[in-house]
């Protein structure tokens, strides 16, 4: 449609200009603040250049937060993909078309919930005395107490389970829809060769879906960066610093504990650089 019209310019330019302003102003300003020593309590500030960044690398709590964030990212992404592929293939294999529709509807519900709601729902459920999820344990052990959210060893996994509850089930629906778009011939051929069900999926269907599955994982990696709501409601980074991810630590430095806005901003800038570099590289590879 190579027509001479002003439409592309009038439609695209204002929107992109606004998006650029809305995104670049905070981004650049985050860098400016990170080079100063602003605090919420006073309006005075001076330029300290890179000293916030130097302090960060000497801050053991920051290094812990980096490690927790990496753990969170790996645990949630891997678990989500495993649940999604497992349930997706199961639906494809054993559910009738009508059952598939019902399951698809059910599996979308958790991801639609506000993270705050999901976090509360599971915080009640994990309550050691009155929670519904810990009830089976109390029943079997005759009343022993299991408190997953207050043990350093289990807290991260307990919070991650809520993330997987939301995203793993949702992605299972997408995996099913992807399987349904595949042509039936290769599956039939494999069946004629007496391949077992799981072999068909491991060697035929899932390799055919490699590209969309990688994109799906990419989306999950981005969404996993947004862990703040769940952690804020469920553990506040605790017990101790066992679930303190980077955004949680930045928030508590900037707002709760000391109001060190510049210090928090330096952390945010590092996160921004790391994510933009990682995801730009991954995106180019996915596209290639």
């Amino acid at each position, binding site marked *: *449609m190579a*027509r001479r019209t002003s*439409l*592309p310019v009038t*439609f*695209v330019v204002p*929107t*992109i200009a*606004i*998006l650029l302003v809305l*995104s670049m*102003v*905070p*981004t650049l*300003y*985050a860098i400016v*603040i990170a080079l100063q020593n*602003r605090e919420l309590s006073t309006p005075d500030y001076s330029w300290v250049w890179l000293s916030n960044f130097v302090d960060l690398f000497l801050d053991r709590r920051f290094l812990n937060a980096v490690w927790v964030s990496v753990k969170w990212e790996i645990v949630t992404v891997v678990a989500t993909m495993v649940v999604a592929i497992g*349930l997706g293939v199961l*639906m494809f294999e054993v559910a009738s078309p009508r059952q598939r529709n019902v*399951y*698809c*509807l*059910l*599996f*979308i*519900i*958790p991801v*639609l*919930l*506000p993270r*705050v*709601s999901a976090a*509360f*729902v*599971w915080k009640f*459920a994990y309550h050691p*005395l*009155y929670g*519904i999820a810990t009830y089976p344990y109390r029943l079997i052990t005759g009343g022993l107490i299991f408190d997953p959210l207050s043990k350093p060893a289990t807290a991260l996994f307990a919070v991650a389970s809520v993330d997987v*509850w939301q995203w793993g*089930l949702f992605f299972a629906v997408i995996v099913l*829809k*992807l399987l349904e778009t595949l042509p039936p011939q290769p599956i039939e051929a494999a069946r004629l060769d007496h391949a077992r069900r799981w072999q068909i999926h491991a060697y035929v269907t899932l390799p055919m879906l490699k590209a969309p599955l990688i994109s799906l994982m990419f989306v999950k990696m981005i969404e996993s*960066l*947004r862990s703040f*709501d769940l952690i*804020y*409601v469920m553990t506040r980074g605790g017990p101790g610093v066992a679930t303190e991810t*980077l*955004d949680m630590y930045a*928030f508590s430095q900037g*707002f709760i504990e000391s109001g060190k806005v510049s210090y*928090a*901003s330096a952390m*945010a800038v590092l*996160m921004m650089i790391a994510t*933009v570099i990682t*995801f*730009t590289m991954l995106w180019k590879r996915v596209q290639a």
Partner: protein
Amino acid sequence: MKPGRLIGKTILAFAGFLAVFPLLWTALNSLKNNVDIITRVPRLVFTPTLANISYILGRDSVMTGLCNSVVACGSAVLIGVVLGLPAAYAVARYPNRWAGDIQFFVLSLRFLPPVAVAIPLMVIWLQVGLYDTLPALIITYSLLTISVIMWLAIPAFQAVPKEIEEAAFVDGYGAYSVFWRIALPVAARSLAGAIAFSFVLVWNEFLIALMLSSSNAKTLPIVASELSQQGMNVPWGILNASVVLLSLPPLLFLGVLSGFLNSVFRQKKT
């Protein structure tokens, strides 16, 4: 039935149960008195009460939060529609050498850590005097809604058969009326899905709202999260009721969004 299939069906049924049961249990708890919630053995039989729900609906903070959420999300989505849809159409139908870069830029906005946006914006809004106001929240949310609507609407417009638009041009329609009278109505269903998705996204947003409001502009998720910090005696029933209230609006879009998902994959098939 083979044992393998039976096991598979059982796992699926359990997953389906797991998907909805926690939420149903919360809804049930919102109808209970505290005595019926704080029990070592979960109670299914109890005398229902509406006290929690009426307490929630009667609180000023909750009502203010609800209004703020509706106004902030509604306005941001409206801005997203007005600015995002035309831009998406232009990128889809008049691709030029920047089209790829524009799409990548719009997607890359999603990479930005919310903290990295919220901290500088808080300082900026404080300096401008707009901190803790709805306009500040709306402008910030517009960044989210415009980019998400654009991202999802580009494929929706690409899926409109070109022939229909060509025919309209032949009939003497201009470029703008083709967009307005042909492309928009034909793509309406997918676009509705994209818009609903952007609404759910900002309705559920927590971190930015937490950082950009202190009292006046608090949205419902913030108010709900604060209810848990009242005193030593956790009002479980009230908390459950607030969770239910907060979760209802996104669930209203369940039908639209699952239809949207289906239409996305039907396009891929053909």
